[in-house]
């Protein structure tokens, strides 16, 4: 029996002003609808231009069950296609990255395509004369991704025609990408050092919510924070810390710290946590680098860049950015109860190696499959996924700091422990889920 398909009202009813129904995390049918509607109508991060420096360079990925191919064109632009031969559906590339040369060739029957997806050649061409091939999709080459946007080298796609255009979708949230990119005096970032990949048995929303959950570190990460304090015991508060301690000790901060860091919510589910400060604020400084930034961006912008080290900027629903350290997380849904989380590190061109080291070290300490911080997070996500099968209470509470008639104001800073950040994600989720869906009869 279909409860949610073509039933916008039933989907909307899952998201109340201050709580959500457990089905958003556990229901298989909703996950199928998410794949078609939600992940089709939203702009999702798919890659970074620095991964495709040369013509013919490609990236392949799975976005909510769709096989995608990004390809650097001969003219320098980035093209996006479904990774599917127009003939019988074989994937044109099966490596996650590489260079395809001057054209793509399907390994199954040797149909070939230009880098712009146009059909080039096929064997036994005469056999297609007087057939309908050239009037149908199969004769037109690769299916392009119509909505692809490269913003300061961050590549996003929207698979469906429905949903807002790129600028309206992200709006002011894009300043957090600017802020990260401007940490390079030349305004260029490069993905470096490899991507750490994790799979967890939970719904993707649990991970995304947790990025904005400033209340859990005190309890969830107690063991990691205590261990960090215990091995660092005996060192004075002003003693220079090794990078690993600089990054781990702030997990021992209390509720007040996280509350006062402040947050902003933006339309369409995006957010900025750590408007005032964050666990990343106290990293050491490099005078020569700061001078290079001043020369490139001016003193005021440099101060703005260096003073702001947000905890996390969420580009709903696929990307979370830490401007300092230069690290991002990419979140991909695999199944209703399975999620892929990747941790990427960046080098800021013209910045010292220590900035890349910070990204690599932070990702290893906090987002690696062997991270002692992540272990407790993942345990809790998987625990919730199982716990939500309980009878009696089908609701998940998002009441903290909720007030009736909450009206979004992107310019206002709210307290850092406010669950508005999650309520905002779910309101955006419901909107994208039902976009274009007819109201039930």
């Amino acid at each position, binding site marked *: 029996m279909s409860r949610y398909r073509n039933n916008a009202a039933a989907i909307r009813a899952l998201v109340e002003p201050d709580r959500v129904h457990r089905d958003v995390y556990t229901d298989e049918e909703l996950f199928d609808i998410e794949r078609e509607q939600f992940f089709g109508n939203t702009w999702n991060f798919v890659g970074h231009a620095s991964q495709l420096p040369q013509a013919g360079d490609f990236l392949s990925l799975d976005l909510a069950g769709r096989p995608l191919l990004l390809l650097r064109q001969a003219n320098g632009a980035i093209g996006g296609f479904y990774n599917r031969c127009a003939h019988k559906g074989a994937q044109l590339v099966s490596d996650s990255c590489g260079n395809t040369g001057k054209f793509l060739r399907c390994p199954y029957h040797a149909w070939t395509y230009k880098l712009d997806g146009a059909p080039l050649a096929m064997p036994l061409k005469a056999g297609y004369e007087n057939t309908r091939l050239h009037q149908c999709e199969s004769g037109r080459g690769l299916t392009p991704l119509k909505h692809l946007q490269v913003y300061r080298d961050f590549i996003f796609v929207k698979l469906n025609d429905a949903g807002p255009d790129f600028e309206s979708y992200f709006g002011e949230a894009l300043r957090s990408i600017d802020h990260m990119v401007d940490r390079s005096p030349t305004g260029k970032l490069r993905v470096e050092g*490899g991507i750490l*990949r994790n799979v967890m048995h939970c719904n993707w929303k649990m991970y995304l919510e947790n990025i904005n959950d400033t209340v859990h570190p005190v309890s969830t990460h*107690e063991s990691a924070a205590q261990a960090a304090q215990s091995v660092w015991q005996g060192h004075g508060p002003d003693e220079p810390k*090794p990078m690993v301690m600089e990054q781990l000790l702030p997990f021992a901060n209390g509720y007040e710290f996280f509350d006062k860091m402040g947050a902003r919510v933006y339309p369409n589910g995006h957010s900025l946590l750590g408007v005032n400060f964050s666990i990343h604020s106290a990293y050491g400084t490099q005078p020569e680098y700061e001078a290079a930034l001043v020369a490139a961006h001016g003193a005021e912008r440099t101060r703005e860049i260096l003073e702001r080290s947000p905890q996390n900027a969420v580009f709903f629903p696929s990307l979370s950015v830490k401007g300092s350290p230069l690290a991002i997380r990419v979140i991909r849904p695999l199944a209703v109860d399975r999620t892929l989380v990747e941790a990427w590190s960046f080098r800021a061109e013209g910045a010292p190696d220590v900035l890349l*080291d910070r990204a690599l070290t932070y990702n290893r300490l906090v987002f690696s499959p*062997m991270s002692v911080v992540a*272990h407790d997070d993942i345990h809790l996500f998987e625990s919730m996924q199982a716990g939500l099968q309980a009878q009696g209470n089908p609701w998940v509470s998002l009441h903290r700091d909720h007030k009736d008639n909450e009206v979004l104001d992107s310019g206002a800073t709210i307290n850092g422990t406010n669950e508005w950040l999650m309520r905002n994600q779910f309101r955006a989720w419901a909107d994208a889920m039902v976009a274009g869906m007819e109201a039930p009869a």
Partner: protein
Amino acid sequence: MTCQPTDADLVNFVLQEARLLAEQQYDAWLALFAQQGRYWVPLAGAAQVDGARAASIADEDRLLLSLRIDRLKNPRAFSQHPRSQAQHVLQTPQVCERDELHQHYTLYTPFLYTEARGETQVQASGHWMHRLCIEEGQLRILLKRVNLLNPGMAWPAIQLFP
């Protein structure tokens, strides 16, 4: 320990080290590391060039190893309810290099690794590269490098020491 360990001494050292891990005697295991000792699981596995700037699944000196071990003892290490257990099945370690001048010894040990917890288990395979040294008359680990077969895949949590 003699000043010049025999190949058999080196091989036994690695086998005993694996046994300490299997028995979760982590303090005794940590004591096998030299003062500058390092436990490293490179993200690129055997292909990783040492010294290059690259991500690692784990890269820990004695300080970080002691942090990890300290946390495992904390009853509020929630991901350890239920506790993880691990077993390595090793091929006989092979002594690859003996640098008698610096008293550095390199061993290669292929392994299968299972980490079990509750109703689930994680399987991994690969090989260890040990660089052993003599410190205060004892064999010690300068570097234990864990080259996983498929380090770049999406892993579930690996909570102990592959």
